[in-house]
Each structure stands twice: as structure tokens, then as C-alpha cells.
């Protein structure tokens, strides 16, 4: 009897989490904890520090490179530490850069393995331009800093001419290495109103221009720039970052709709900026849950909620990631999702294969 009740309870638990047999999450490899180059350092820093975990060591970003390798960007030894593993978890190379971590606003790594570090900046800093040395540092896939003085000068001029106020959202880099920096700017004819625009430039040429912000910048399944727009159609352009709760559209830069999803009232999107579209048929929402203690470092539970175009949950899974980490997940052009999660033995790199049907 007791065994039967157990079976029923297990079944009920399984039913409570809607899953789809077409979706599976498998472990690709595990990187053990430790401080050597082929390990992941996860440590709590000095308690005599308040702020931004500067003394702590933990992974921040995961990127699947176009070579099929995995890049893990960590904070380690007060620097940014890059490890590149092949698909079976063997360390290929490492490098590090001494960035002023407490001064960074946003970080991203493109599929070539180039690291982009955007420093914090506000309009008042821009006014005192002589105090701003640099707002962007770029390191190539081997960790060599790329000189961008001329481009940075153009970037400053672009920020000033667009009445830059402050950065909003993270910078994004598309598959071609085009860099997109979302900013809040003042309207020419209304000094009190903030508008959302994106500054676009490339390392391959000196052109720099602006795009209207049509929503949350993201990569389309093909690796181009796209915008996730949650606003109602009638205000979608001006209120492009507003969350309405009924639909979400993936727009291209020319405002055409690439794909569209309905949103279930029971699935409030609490973090529109973290959502992503791995294939045209699925939307992945990322939810943030409680923080749990770990002897090494506090960990935060996050959840992937995968919705189909009708807004139904087709798969959910939990991640356990270091508090303060950013995007420890990525996709490939086939629509597979890769993510990092902490386990008792080390960090696991896992893969969710999405059904193409």
C-alpha cells in the first residue's frame, strides 16, 4: 500500500511539472571545482567588502563558439578569466585580462571568442569628458587587447550627438561581430523624455550609426540582431521595452515580424531582458528564484520555461548558478540550448535539444 502511494505521489509530482518527452536535458561534461586552469573557481571573497562580489570567484558567462567549443568567462583573482573547453570538456586554452571589474557595466563574448567590456558611463561623466579614459575594451580570442582609440572617439561623439543619458540593458554582439550598445537618450524637442536607441558599430570598419530600439536586443536563431517586443502593437515602437503580457514578437531591425508567441496569463514574464528565442517555434523565459547557501558561494536558482508559439509550457528545467552571474546559457544555430549549472562535483555544461517539430 505504502509503495503504491509512493508511486502515485511520484506520478503526481511528474505531472505537476509539464514536460515533453521530445525535450531532453543531457550533461555534456563536468568541470570540477578548484583553482587550477582546467577547473572552475567558486569561492566567496573577503567579508570585508560590500558591493559587487569583487573578491569572489565564480563563472559569469557561457558562450558556445562557432568552432563548437565552450567559452566560460569567470571572475578569478580579481581579473576576468577565460577558459575554452572542447565539446568533451577538455581544456583548450585559457587567458585573462585585468579589467577594473567594479567599473564595468556590461560584458559580452561573441562567437569568435572576442570579449567586449563596456564601462559604466552616465551623461554627467560624459560632460566631464576629460575624466573618462575609456568606455570599451575589446580582447581577441587569444586575450590580446585590440586597439580601438579611433573607434572609441567616434563612439564618444555619437553618444554626445545623441544626447546620451545612461546605458540601458547589456551590449549585444551578433554573429558578424557587429556591436550593439543600447542607450537612453534625451529627445531633441523634449528634454524630459528618455528615448531608447542603439548604437551600432563594427570592428571591421569605421562606420558607426544608430538604430531605433524596437525591443530587447537579442540574437535571432540565425545569429542576427533581433528585438523581443512585449508591448501592445499600438505602442510597440515608442514603448518598445514595455511588458504587456499578451504577446511577444521577435522583430528584425527593419521592424518585420520574424516570429510571434502568445503569452499565457499564468506565465508572467518577469524578466523580458533575459528571454530568448532559440528556434522560431520556441520562446525561453528565464525566471529567478531563491538564493540558497552553499559552502563555497551562494547559489541562485533560476528556471528555464520553454513555451511554444501558443504560449504553452513544453519544458521546464532548473539551473543552479552563482549569485551575481549573468548569462550562463547560449544557443546554437540548430536551436539547441546550452547552459551551466552547479552541482556538488563541479559545474555541468548541459544541453537541451529542442524538437524541430
Amino acid at each position, binding site marked *: 500500500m505504502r509503495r503504491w502511494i509512493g508511486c502515485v505521489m511520484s506520478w503526481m509530482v511528474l505531472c505537476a511539472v509539464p514536460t515533453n518527452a521530445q525535450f531532453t536535458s543531457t550533461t555534456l561534461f563536468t568541470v570540477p571545482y578548484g583553482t587550477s586552469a582546467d577547473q572552475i573557481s567558486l569561492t566567496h571573497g573577503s567579508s570585508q567588502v*560590500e*558591493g559587487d562580489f*569583487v573578491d569572489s570567484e565564480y563563472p559569469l558567462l557561457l558562450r558556445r563558439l562557432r568552432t563548437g567549443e565552450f567559452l566560460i568567462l569567470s571572475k578569478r583573482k580579481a581579473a576576468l578569466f577565460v577558459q575554452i573547453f572542447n565539446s568533451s570538456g577538455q581544456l583548450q586554452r585559457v587567458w585573462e585580462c585585468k579589467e577594473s571589474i567594479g*567599473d564595468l557595466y556590461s560584458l559580452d563574448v561573441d562567437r569568435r571568442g572576442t570579449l567586449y567590456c563596456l564601462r559604466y558611463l552616465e551623461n554627467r561623466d560624459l560632460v*566631464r569628458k576629460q575624466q573618462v579614459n575609456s568606455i570599451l575594451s575589446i580582447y581577441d580570442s587569444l586575450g590580446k587587447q585590440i586597439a580601438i582609440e579611433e573607434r572609441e572617439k567616434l563612439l564618444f561623439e555619437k553618444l554626445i550627438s545623441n544626447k546620451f543619458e545612461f546605458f*540601458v540593458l547589456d551590449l549585444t554582439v551578433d554573429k558578424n561581430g557587429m556591436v550593439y550598445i543600447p542607450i537612453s537618450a534625451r529627445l531633441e524637442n523634449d528634454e*524630459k523624455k528618455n528615448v531608447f536607441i542603439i548604437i551600432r558599430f563594427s570592428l571591421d570598419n569605421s562606420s558607426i550609426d544608430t538604430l531605433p530600439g524596437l525591443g530587447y536586443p537579442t540574437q535571432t536563431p540565425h545569429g542576427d540582431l533581433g528585438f523581443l517586443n512585449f508591448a501592445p502593437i499600438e505602442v510597440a515602437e515608442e*514603448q518598445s*521595452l514595455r511588458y504587456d503580457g499578451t504577446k511577444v514578437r521577435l522583430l528584425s531591425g527593419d521592424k518585420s515580424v520574424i516570429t510571434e508567441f502568445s503569452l499565457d496569463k499564468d506565465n508572467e514574464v518577469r524578466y523580458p531582458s533575459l528571454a530568448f528565442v532559440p528556434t522560431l517555434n520556441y520562446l525561453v523565459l528565464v525566471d529567478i528564484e531563491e538564493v540558497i547557501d552553499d559552502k563555497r558561494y551562494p547559489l541562485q536558482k533560476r528556471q528555464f520555461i520553454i513555451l511554444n508559439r501558443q504560449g504553452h509550457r513544453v519544458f521546464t528545467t532548473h539551473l543552479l548558478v552563482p549569485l551575481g552571474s549573468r548569462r550562463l546559457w547560449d544557443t546554437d544555430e540548430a536551436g539547441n540550448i546550452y547552459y551551466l549549472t552547479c552541482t556538488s562535483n563541479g559545474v555541468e555544461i548541459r544541453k537541451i535539444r529542442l524538437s524541430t517539430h
Partner: protein
Amino acid sequence: MKGLRVALIMAMLLAVYLGITSTGCAQNQGVVYPTGFVLIYRNERTPFRWVQRWVQRNNQRVLERVRVNINYNMETIQFVLIIRGSDGNYYTNFGGTGNTEYYRPEDGWIIMGTGIPVEDYARFHTVLVRDWLRLPTNRRVALDVRWYGYAGSRVDRETRKTTTVSPPLNYVDPGGRDRIRYYLVDIERNPGSGNWGKRRINLSDSGGIIAPMIRISWRDPKSNSERVEWFPSQSSGLAPLPGLNDCARRSSTGACIESINTPTDASFNQYWSNRTWDYNIYFSASLINPQYPVQYPVFVMHNVGAITGGHSDRGIVGDAVNYNISYDTPRWWRIQRATIWLNVPYEWGGKFFGARASGQQFNYNLNGSGTTSGFGLDCSGLVAVAKGSYRAYYYGVGAVVNETRWLYREVRSGGRVFRVNDWASLRPGDVIVRHPRNSHVMILYRISNTAGLYTYHYIESYGASSNNPGASEERVRYRTGSASSFDLDGFEPRAFND
């Protein structure tokens, strides 16, 4: 008749020569040289602003409107250097106008001085300040007056040990580091030397602290030697400014054997060990703004209201109606007071930027008590001073949590109901807190709306233990964040109960 007129003119000239001016007879016919200094200042355009304050009247606590001195960024401050002459009179340089003047509290002047009798502070509003230029040149000494300004502070860590300022060879801090962390205070000499008695200083656009320093030198006629005085005073091992090391060279025993007295456009490091720096600055008690600590000469608030087209002295105008903050409310004061401390160095356990340099990396003792004698502020120390609590030794992030309430809302997800952070309920003057893991607190001063996305502008005292590149950011600073970035970092919105 003509002879009488000539005699009268001669008598007048003699009277002028002897110093018989509007004040009557001169007390001393010898050479007049400085014996003390007074620096007074006021906001040029708005010497006073009004606030409400609880005061005791006839054993009753009543709410009254009182005048206070509030300076905002982008305003102009008038400074007047007044010397106390060896003849007991007070002098300043009027630039040749020949006038005498009173500098009265009712005109908004705030007084600080050194080397003058204490009783003079109390009656300074009745003191007639004379024109130094009108003293005959053979009665006054030639003053060389140089003004310096506080240009900012930075944090750094030494790369090699030095015999003069480094900790002993066997010193290791709790983080395992044997080198010291410096707080660098940059000062710069203001250009120009003429018209030394009066200065107008245009405040920068960020708020903060301005600490004018003045070097006055002259040849002392008594000893026929060169005399140098600093304002604030540097005598008896006093430093003009926290972080400004008043000792250039030390003996092997640590004794100071050479003082710094000419900090020309230089940076100075903080001595690593315990020091006692006290200011020899006195304020006229009736003029102390009750909302401020008094150890510093001039506080500058950031005109947060101007960011959205208003002005802080009419309240803070927000990007939305419910983000408006009324003038002279607890919320308003928390925001405005916090902005005074911009760029002050971070120090763990620092509960007040209190003009003493401990040099220690942190200042909590074994009882869990912070300090008001440290050099910087920690994150909760910034909240404490923003509240007007300048000696809150035990005020940590836990105390902030106890004083505030969590702003949450209930959401349904997957058939369950959760309590989640309600960032939309946050208003300027509230706090953003992470506790107890990796405790931190920030004070919100503005919420802006960009295309439907709310950006939260906050001021924080950001800490980093050193030996890392982030150490340069160890200071009170402005930053922005979004609800999702706060959630990723484990923060929650909390409101004070006011």
C-alpha cells in the same frame, strides 16, 4: 585761515597714518602681522534656504521654520579670508575699495577659524573687518596667499614597500596582503594670487565636499624669519584634509621628521597606522546647519531635482508623478544628504567620514561596532549619514533591514503563488538591499522610464578589498540598474517607514 586748513589736513593725514579710521585709535603703532585666520563663506545667490525643524521652546517641542545653509552643485560660493592682526583687529583684502564690512550670520556667513580667541567666534557678527590694504605699507607685512582646492580622492595600493609609510615587514592584513592601501587626496592650487581676501568658487556639477586650503606666508618682523601658516591649521601634527598626509618623511621609529607644507598640485597618501587628526576648526554655533556634521568646511548637495527639469529646493521632480519627492521630507533629506558624500572613499565599518585616518582596511572591532573615526564610509554608513546619524557605530545592513519593510507582490506561476520583489513600488529615498549573504545596501535617488523600461539610479558606497583593479572604484558613487539586474544579484527593494 589757510594755515588752519593746512594744519587740519596734516592732522587728518597723520590720523590716517596712525590708523585712526572709523574704529577709533589704533591699539598698536608697530607692524601688524597675522596671529590667526578666519575663513567665512556663504552661498552667493541663496545664502539661506528654509527647512522645518523640531526645536525646544519653553519646555515644549515645536516645529519651526529655520534658516539653513544648503549648497547645490553649479552654484557659487563666496569665500573671504580674514586675518587677525597682531593689533587685535580683523582684516581682509577688499581689493582696494577702502570699505570696512561686517560679516553677519543674518547675511548667511558661516565662520570657521584657527588661531583666534574662542570668545571672538561668539561675537564675530559684531566684529568690523577692516581693509588690510588701507594699512600703510610700512605697518603691514607682505602676505603671500595661495589658495588650494580639493580635487578628488582615489584609492590605490602600494606596489613596493617603503621605509616611511609601509607597514612593518611582518605585517599581513586579514586578506593576506602585506602592502598598504592608500587613500589619495588630490589637491590643486587655484590660479591667480591677487585679491587674496575674497574668492568665488563655482561648484562642480556633481555635489560632494569642497575643502579650501590656504597657505599664507610672510616675514615675521619680530624674529625676522619666514612664517608659514596653513588654513586649516597644520600645527601640532594636524592635517588640512583627511587623507592629506602631513608628514613627508619619518624616522625609523615612525616619528615625523619632515612636514609637508607646500602641497603644490600633489597627491599625498594616508599613513597606514593609527593617527589622530583633529581639526582646529570652529564653527559659530548659531550657524551650524543642524542637518550636517560639522567637521568639513563646505558641503555640496547634488541638485537631483534638476535632472528632470525641476530643482531640489522645491522637491525632487520624478519621471512619473509617484516619483516626485516633496522638499524637506525624510525621503528628500536621505537623498540629498547622501549626495554630499560622493567620491568619499569606502572603508568597511566606516560610519562617518570623520576626518581621522585609521589606515586600516576595515574598522569593525570584535564587538561588531563600527567607527566614526575612520577615513571613509561603508555601505550602511552611507545610509546612516544620509539619515543624519553621524555616530551610528552599530548601524549595519541588518539595521537597515530592521528599519525597512520588503516591497513585494504576489504572482501566480505554474499554478503556485509566490511573493516576489515589487520593484514598481520602489520610490526615490527607498533602499535596495542584499542581506545576509554578501550584504550591501544602496539608496535610490531617481527612477527613469526609457521606452517602458524603468532604470533605477542609486548612490552607494562600493567596497572592494584591494589588490585588484576594482579597487579604484572603492568610493561613494552613482550607478544605475534594472529590476532584472538587481534580481540576478540577489537584491530586494525595501522602504523606510516614513
